[in-house]
């Protein structure tokens, strides 16, 4: 499938900022099922951009801009060719061993309720794939997500206790729950072609299964991602894989407006 992405983020400040430094995780990389045809990260003001790879193997772009800055627009445009791999990943950059992804973080620390839920849905089978599919479906059945909303800092445990709103929340719950089942699991951010109006990148998960490798799960759909997904960044949680980590020097408030389009191009399968 040929997917086009256009992702505009406009940060407006109530007072001009002296400096802005951002770390952007907005660039997908080639895998066996994903070929980046073209990709561009652009900024609407004088800024210096530097590309690098972070410790997780994600492509990152450092953005440095000197003020005074009243607003800054980051525009990502690109085209990616994808193929359906039934969720099984091949050819991803893997600088860290899977066992690292058993680690808990403040955002993914499981509550007793979440751990019990994981144990409950996976009871009766020892097959790791089956257990994770059941977890994926159970989360899908339990939470109805509205189109994605900006990061509100909710932890997996908090979201599980309340009403999950975004794909970020259910993805983080999956990651947290899978780890309680001793399955290495990580958070993925990227783009999903689902025909809805979105205002944040989509989130899903990957879990490690011995003998199979990393396998993707999307608890929003209850399925494994097919060719409608553009995989961008992975991390231990939503913070670690966030599209933007920013720091600004200046007073006042920040407002973020996002305009995101994920479209299918052409008809070739």
């Amino acid at each position, binding site marked *: 499938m040929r997917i086009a992405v256009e992702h505009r983020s406009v940060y407006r400040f109530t007072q001009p900022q002296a400096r802005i430094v951002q*770390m952007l995780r907005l660039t997908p990389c080639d895998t066996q099922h994903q070929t980046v045809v073209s990709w561009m990260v652009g900024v609407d003001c004088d800024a210096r951009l*530097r590309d*690098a790879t*972070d*410790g997780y193997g994600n492509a990152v772009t450092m953005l440095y801009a000197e003020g005074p800055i009243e607003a800054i627009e980051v525009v990502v445009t690109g085209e990616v060719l994808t193929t359906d791999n039934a969720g099984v990943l091949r050819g991803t950059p893997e600088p860290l061993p899977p066992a*690292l992804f*058993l680690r808990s973080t403040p955002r993914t620390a499981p509550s007793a309720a979440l751990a019990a839920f994981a144990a409950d849905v996976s009871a009766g089978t020892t097959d790791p794939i089956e257990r994770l599919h059941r977890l994926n479906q159970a989360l899908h059945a339990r939470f109805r997500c509205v189109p994605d909303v900006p990061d509100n800092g909710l932890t997996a445990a908090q979201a599980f206790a309340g009403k999950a709103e975004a794909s970020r929340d259910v993805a983080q719950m999956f990651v947290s729950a899978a780890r309680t089942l001793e399955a290495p699991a990580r958070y993925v951010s990227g783009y999903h072609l689902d025909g809805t109006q979105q205002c944040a990148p989509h989130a899903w998960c990957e879990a490690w299964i011995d003998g199979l490798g990393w396998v993707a799960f999307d608890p929003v759909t209850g399925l494994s991602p097919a060719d409608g997904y553009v995989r961008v960044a992975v991390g231990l949680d939503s913070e670690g894989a966030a599209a933007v980590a920013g*720091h600004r020097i200046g007073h006042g408030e920040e407002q973020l407006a996002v305009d995101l389009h994920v479209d299918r191009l052409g008809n070739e399968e």
Partner: protein
Amino acid sequence: MGSRGAFDEIWGHGGPDAPRAEFSTLSQWIADTPADELQRRQQSAEAAFRQLGITFAVYGDSDAAERIIPFDIVPRIFLQREWQKLSEGLVQRVEAINAFLEDIYGARRILDEGIIPPELILRNEQFRPEVAGIRPPHGVWAHICGIDLVRTGPDEFYVLEDNARTPSGVSYMLENREAMIRLCPELFRDFRVAPVDSYPDMLLETMRSVAPSGRARPVCVVLTPGHFNSAYYEHSFLADSMGVELVEAADLVVDDDIVYMETIAGRVRVDVIYRRIDDDFLDPLVFKPDSLLGVPGLIAAYRAGNVALLNAPGNGIADDKAIYSYMPEIVRFYSGGEARLPNVETWRCREPQALKYVLDHLPELVVKLVDGSGGYGMLVGPTASSEQIETFRAALIAEPHRYIAQPTLALSTVPTLTEKGLAPRHVDFRPFVLTGSDKVRVVPGGLTRVALREGSLVVNSSQGGGTKDSFVLLGDAA
């Protein structure tokens, strides 16, 4: 536990009247100098420290509680041959620490070979995936190490703890020596003591040696969390004696992956940063996002190879308690030989055989939580009630992987001036080892901490510990 049976480094096991043969001259000096004269000199040293502001602030106390660390006038002495042996062991250990860090953030050979259980590294918070894959300039990770040693006999030294992050205390080593030269000049006439005052020069050489290549006259700075930090005196002392700027995070900016400091004449590029702030607060984009102390973009500059950070971020994995017990294996793995400086014997309760031994010998052992700190979650068998022992027994059986156990050591003592005259007091020792791109330098001296209370083994300054000067002799008699 008392001092009975402990080895005294000057008096041996025989007491003041029968000092160790090599220490007869020093023992004579101690015997000949009246106690009130020693007292007077000691007070004069402490008054000077207070004036200079060599104080430390106890957490939670206000400025009014700025205190000085008590200073003891009787030096601790290493003979040349003792020091020679110690240094060789220190160099070997620090080289192994550097090799371990290089491996663990790179190829992870040591995990593949099964030397250390992978989860002990991978699930350890001190292992920082954020800096995985970065090779610091010139491949040096632990530039400044403080290795905490204890001694139990003439030739028995053990490593109690490695400090590969931001070990402090070197300013005490230097200020104590200053005080001793001023107050007891006769000692420096009688003995040939190796000087320590070249430490700032050695540190600066080390810093310059790891500057990113191509920088002809590298700009070095010391990065402090600020003047409210308890070690601020040391930070300003080191910056001052090296003649480099003492900067705070707000003085630094990163642009285009290059670090600059803001001066009155504009931005000046910075090449080498001796940082005295923790990893968590280095860069809010990578570590704690809410940190106000950090420099956004610093890790990007580091990753790009444009700045050297001393010590490298992520070093905490090398001096973590859970890793400590594997140090003999780590040294063997990277150096090919046995560790010259042994660890304190440690039983890892995660291993069934060790657990069995520990459960059978609880009243004799010290049991520690692997992830505990500050003495919490610790059982000191010989002084514990049977109730406490049973509580720990249950905890050990429930979660054995969280505990290690060690024998209770008879720490050596050094004669120390007390209210009742000279008496043996327990000591430990922190020598400082510098690793540059060119070589490893061991400063001939270090920080001796002394437990001032009779019989006490606690040398921490926050709990009544003091310091002594540590002489390294250029000959074999004192």
